[in-house]
């Protein structure tokens, strides 16, 4: 086969396989019919509208937002100083500390969720929402450390040493010299953490109680009982949200440099 035919054919098939299902979801969510079908039966926005009226979706969306924003912020509060220590100081047990904070990325989420349920929630009677928050913080921590470290390593350390020599305190040098320079790295870490946490299912699987559910978990249980296109509509809306966030991040931050 000549490359002239080969290249477009392969790309058409592969990209179609990767992106096609997304278009089908969008089309199915615009259907006027009562059940999930493709091609859609007529055109209507009723399922898109219905998404906003389902009460459990509203609640779980709020919880997922809270976890994604709060958990990522907490992970950065822990992760930024840790990354700073790892990249600028002679840190005792540095490699061990780096491994411990990176572990949550390696261990499958479902195991973390189960372990937390069994050894933290049950024995200590810890609130489910709080446990979810802690779990999502731990989950985002490795991403925060990785992205912020990368951004710190790209910044020459002599400028803060110069600031200290010129009489600034160490903390002053950090907030006035380092922070402004790694701001876009921190923002990139925030976006990556937000998307990771928001789309996360396995960690939250065991950590769902009455009235406390993250949005993806809620979607999973909704589609078990109902076969209408509202989950398709919600999926499409969420996909557009993620794509929008990442697109803006790439546009203004050059996001892909950090990931």
């Amino acid at each position, binding site marked *: 086969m000549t490359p002239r035919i080969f290249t477009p054919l392969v790309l058409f098939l*592969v990209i179609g396989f990767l992106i096609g299902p997304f278009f*089908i979801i969008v089309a199915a969510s615009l259907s006027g019919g009562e059940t999930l079908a493709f091609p859609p039966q007529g055109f209507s926005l009723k399922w898109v509208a219905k998404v906003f009226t389902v009460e459990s979706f509203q609640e779980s969306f709020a919880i997922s937002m809270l976890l994604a924003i709060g958990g990522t912020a907490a992970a950065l509060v822990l992760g930024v100083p840790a990354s700073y*220590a790892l990249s600028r100081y002679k840190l005792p047990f540095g490699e061990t*500390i780096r491994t411990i904070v990176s572990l949550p990325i390696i*261990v499958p989420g479902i195991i973390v969720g189960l372990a937390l349920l069994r050894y933290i929630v049950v024995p200590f009677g810890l609130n489910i929402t709080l446990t979810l928050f802690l779990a999502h913080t731990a989950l985002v921590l490795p991403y925060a450390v990785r992205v912020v470290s990368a951004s710190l390593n790209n910044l020459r350390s002599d400028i803060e040493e110069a600031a200290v020599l010129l009489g600034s305190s160490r903390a002053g040098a950090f907030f006035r010299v380092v922070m402004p320079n790694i701001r876009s790295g921190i923002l990139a870490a925030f976006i990556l953490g937000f998307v990771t946490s928001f789309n996360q299912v396995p960690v939250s699987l065991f950590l769902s109680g009455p009235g406390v559910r993250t949005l993806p978990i809620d979607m999973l249980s909704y589609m078990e009982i109902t076969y209408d296109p509202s989950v398709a509509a919600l999926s499409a809306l969420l996909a557009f949200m993620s794509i929008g966030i990442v697109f803006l991040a790439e546009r203004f931050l050059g996001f892909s440099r950090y990931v």
Partner: protein
Amino acid sequence: MFQNRAEALALALPAAVFAAIVFLAPVVILLAEGFRSADSWSLSAYTTFFSDPLNRTVFLRTFRLGLMVTVVSAVIGYAAAFAIVNLTPRNKGQMIGLVVLPLMISSVARTYAWIVILGRTGIVNQALQLVGLSDEPIRFLFTETAVFIGLLQLFLPLMILSLISALENMPKDAIPAARVLGANWFQVFFKVILPLTKEGLVIGGTLVFTGSLTAYITPAILGGSKVLMLETLLYQRVTVANDFVAASVIAFILIVMSFAANLLLKRLATARNKR
């Protein structure tokens, strides 16, 4: 480099202590539970687990599917990556964007699409009936094929991206040189491209394999209780049977696999940095 150790620890310890308490300790206790029986250490949980034919089936199926997804994604990945690196820079950027795009979409949404496609009244069944290849709807959902397709779609981008960077690091004139010397495309692939992109293949393969092994959503939605994989089995063991010992055994298997894969990746990364 600052030398103050106390300051360094004060900065780094909160994160490390947090991860140790919220994450490391509970997981270690969970794993230890699988090696305990009546107040002493034992492997009886493991022998019990593997003596159940259902568990063995699920274990083997998880590995088989993981392996199949990895191999097929490598084959498709090479074709796609090869096509992409030969594009003009502008088109190449756009294509890479399209490959990355699905990674940003929730895997619940991505997997859900396959219900629309493979369901009883889905596109595939409609097409088959339209051209007269089958008279009644064929069941695709809740089969291994459906899980395989779902996993392949989920993880193929990781393989393509690894192979793109491997192909780009290959010397530009290696392929034309081999062609000029009379090698056919088959020889070019196995004698030139494959050895030179081995590392990218291993990196992509590890990501795809561990991803498939530890997937939950895809087997849950497309396989259901008919096609259990290790993670869905773990969930079922806990929620249906309250069997935490089996859960611990499965957790241990999954963690060992993930760690082995990660170690391999780390080793490859350091080997590459040395060169």
